[in-house]
């Protein structure tokens, strides 16, 4: 990397993604083509088979659900295929398309090619999910300068504001799909993570799902039995009601279903009741982090709420009850992670404004390997977990241990690498296994040195060395269901480069048509006719191919459409 090349910070979210850059005045968010800071993490095909990313695709989520994909971050590091039209994609590939779109926005804004990025991941992402994120960046033509944990990024964004203070932070990060808790301490410019914990499958989207299921029940159907388009529309409506309920006590919306218009109502009380079981799951990760750090609630100087879902009053109320004070959110909870990632990018570039800041992070899981325990002369009980790097150990870290074969004369040792907290491997996650051939030795036990190294992105390397002949073996994560191999990445890269990308400068108009169509489908009667008129008007403007005229018409139609879209019947 050339010294003067810029590194951007990227928040690759479940619902929305952002890109930011560090400048002398501090981190700055980069707007996308539509002038917005948030790019929805949605990918879809347009009618001509070209790929669209962001707002345009998001509007088509309700009109063309089979050609659009969202919330794929939840499937990072799994083999689950996500179908888009007739093709199947991996979550890494879809994420790569989002990353590429952010890269294009950053290049357009900064006027120079961008090849390096700091990308944020949930602190509770495991090794497979982290490697998947790295693979996605590679597919997008970005080199990952470093992965940064989302709550750590948030604390960095808050910490650089006042870097001489001694602070103890507790960061609650409830995003679209994941929940993280981190406890950080700042002293003399050192930002140190002390403990982190979380739930990789708990987020704002779960609250939306619960509300959508509640509405479906009101309509007398199961959400699963609805047509894909109706389901997508209902979900979008539930999402909008969820957002509005953060501000008002009751929200209503109209929903056209089976040729009838239904009025769906939800009060905040009902919402809290429906989502109570989800809310309850927030407590234990918080307790665990606090207890791991060995702290009491009054030891925290600041409780920081991060992630769009912390806007929900019930989430804030829970945090308030748990810590006897209100959580802070002076930086927009949707923006703070991207800004922190930009600060980390500034640190990686050795920006002079950040000379006196250093950040250290911890490993979120315990790492170890499977061992057998001798229970008789030639009998062993397998399945025991021997930890080598304990969770919440400061990274980078490197630990070694010596293992022996169970029997003399054994010619190979299999080292199965696990991650987790249970004393038995059956309850922990298998990361990979390493087959180490050892020389035949009937007289004595051979020895193998196993070294685990956790780098500062939270990525793992395992090296085994046979003591008697100095041969070394490296862990290759293969046969692991979630991980992509290097050759697979190369192959996918070729396939991705063949994809037709929707022209960037036309995305704005496509998004607008998609939005009009979505509104059309959601209305009935007179409103429908009005929207039809708007569509015709806009199509006419488009046919002139006069960019300025199109923009004028779009600006004129926009307020009318917004009014029609606001389903409120109050």
């Amino acid at each position, binding site marked *: 990397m050339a010294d003067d090349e810029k590194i951007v910070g990227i928040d690759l979210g479940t619902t929305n993604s952002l890109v930011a850059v560090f400048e002398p005045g501090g981190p700055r968010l980069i707007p996308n083509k539509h002038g917005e800071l948030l790019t929805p993490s949605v990918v879809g095909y347009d009618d001509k088979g070209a790929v669209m990313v962001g707002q345009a695709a998001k509007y088509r989520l309700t009109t063309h659900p089979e050609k659009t994909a969202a919330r794929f971050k939840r499937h990072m590091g799994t083999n689950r295929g996500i179908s888009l039209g007739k093709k199947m994609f991996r979550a890494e590939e879809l994420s790569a398309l989002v990353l590429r779109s952010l890269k294009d926005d950053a290049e357009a804004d900064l006027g120079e090619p961008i090849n390096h990025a700091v990308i944020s991941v949930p602190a509770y992402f495991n090794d497979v999910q982290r490697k998947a994120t790295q693979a996605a960046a590679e597919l997008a033509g970005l080199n990952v300068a470093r992965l940064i944990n989302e709550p750590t990024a948030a604390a960095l964004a808050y910490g650089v504001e006042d870097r001489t203070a001694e602070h103890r932070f507790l960061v609650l990060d409830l995003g679209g799909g994941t929940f993280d808790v981190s406890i950080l301490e700042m002293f003399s410019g050192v930002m140190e993570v002390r403990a982190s914990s979380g739930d990789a499958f708990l987020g704002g989207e779960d609250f939306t799902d619960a509300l959508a299921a509640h509405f479906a029940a009101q309509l007398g159907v199961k959400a699963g039995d609805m047509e894909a388009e109706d389901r997508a529309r209902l979900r979008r409506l539930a999402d909008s009601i969820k957002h509005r309920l953060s501000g008002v006590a009751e929200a209503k919306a109209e929903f056209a279903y089976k040729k009838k218009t239904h009025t769906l109502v939800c009060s905040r009380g009902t919402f809290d009741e429906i989502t109570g079981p989800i809310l309850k799951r927030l407590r234990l990760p918080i*307790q*665990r982090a606090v207890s791991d750090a060995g702290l009491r609630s009054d030891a925290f100087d600041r409780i920081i709420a991060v992630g769009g879902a912390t806007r929900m009053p019930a989430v804030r109320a829970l945090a308030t009850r748990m*810590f006897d004070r209100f959580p802070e959110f002076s930086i927009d909870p949707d923006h703070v992670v991207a800004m922190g990632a930009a600060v980390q990018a500034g640190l990686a570039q050795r920006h002079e404004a950040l000379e006196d800041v250093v950040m250290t992070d911890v490993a979120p899981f315990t790492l170890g390997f499977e061992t057998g325990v001798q229970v008789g002369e030639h009998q062993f009980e397998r399945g025991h977990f021997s930890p080598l790097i304990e969770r919440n150990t400061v990274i980078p870290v490197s630990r070694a241990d010596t293992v022996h074969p169970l029997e003399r004369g054994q010619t190979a040792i299999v080292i199965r690498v696990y991650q987790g907290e249970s004393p038995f491997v059956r309850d922990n996650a298998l990361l990979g296994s390493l087959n180490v051939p050892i020389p035949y030795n009937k007289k004595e036990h051979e020895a193998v040195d196993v070294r685990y190294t956790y780098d500062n992105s939270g990525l793992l390397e395992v090296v085994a060395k046979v003591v008697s002949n100095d041969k070394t073996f490296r862990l290759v994560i293969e046969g692991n269901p979630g991980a992509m191999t290097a050759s697979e990445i190369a192959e996918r890269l070729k396939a991705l480069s063949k994809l037709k990308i929707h022209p960037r400068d036309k995305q704005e108009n496509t998004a607008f048509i998609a939005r009009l169509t979505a509104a059309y489908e959601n209305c009935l009667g007179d409103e429908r006719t009005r929207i039809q008129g708007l569509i015709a008007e806009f199509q006419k403007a488009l046919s002139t191919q006069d960019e300025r005229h199109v923009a004028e018409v779009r600006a004129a139609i926009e307020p009318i459409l917004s009014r029609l879209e606001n389903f409120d019947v109050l």
Partner: protein
Amino acid sequence: MSYNDPWAVLGLMRDGATEGDVKAAYAEKLKVTRPDDDPAGFMALRAAFENARAQLRWAAEDAEYDGVEDYNDDEAVYSANARDSDIEPAQQTDPPTALRLVSEVLEGLKSPWVGSSKLGINALLDRTEADSVDVFQSFSDEMLYTVYQATTTDDGSVGIPDWLNLTVLQSLDDHFGWSRQSTAHNWSMRNMITHLEKVRRVLRDRELAPRHIRRRAHKAGYEPPPLPISDTRRAAKAGKSDEKRSISCSGVILLILGFMGLINLLNLIATGQ
């Protein structure tokens, strides 16, 4: 890795150094030994930092215990979670509230309406008094300790009190997240959680045993009264696969115990000679 004197690495004098000095020295050295640029140097610095802090902590603890005559066993449980207690130990917070909550839960479990339904137990556990993180933590520790004590007999085997059944144990574990807790740093916690696993096995064997066996045992005065029929069926249905595993597990355990006994015996004979 060879052992380096942490004080030399930090450039401090051992005598009279305080926690603040150690932190400041670490922060200063860290600025020129960044984890991104010099991972090996950073690891050495970090090890020195942690060792120096540990030494200070031990010294402080020694000084404290010199003045304490009577060491209270129960205290060990409260502070069991204070692993990295260099900052502030997680001491017992508001134990009166926690103790009261625990006794109320026990009282509630004894009532016939609550004892066998998950909903009823959850209602007992969901208390606004336990909303604060600190009270919740004490509540959790007290409850775990109570269950541990109530299920341990004098000879060290597992005993089951009247108010405990599989549903109760599972609800408690779900609510407090005991078995999902990391126990690597804390032997007393690990000990209690391993014990809970044993209790779970005993309960599973009892509750899933055929009805006539349990009734016979009950007549002989060993066992708690049989569950209502519907509950037994449901439990049997839900736990079918578990039953098999627990049988094979207990087989393995018997084997281990047997061998351990044998080894002990051999050792005794060897040392006797």
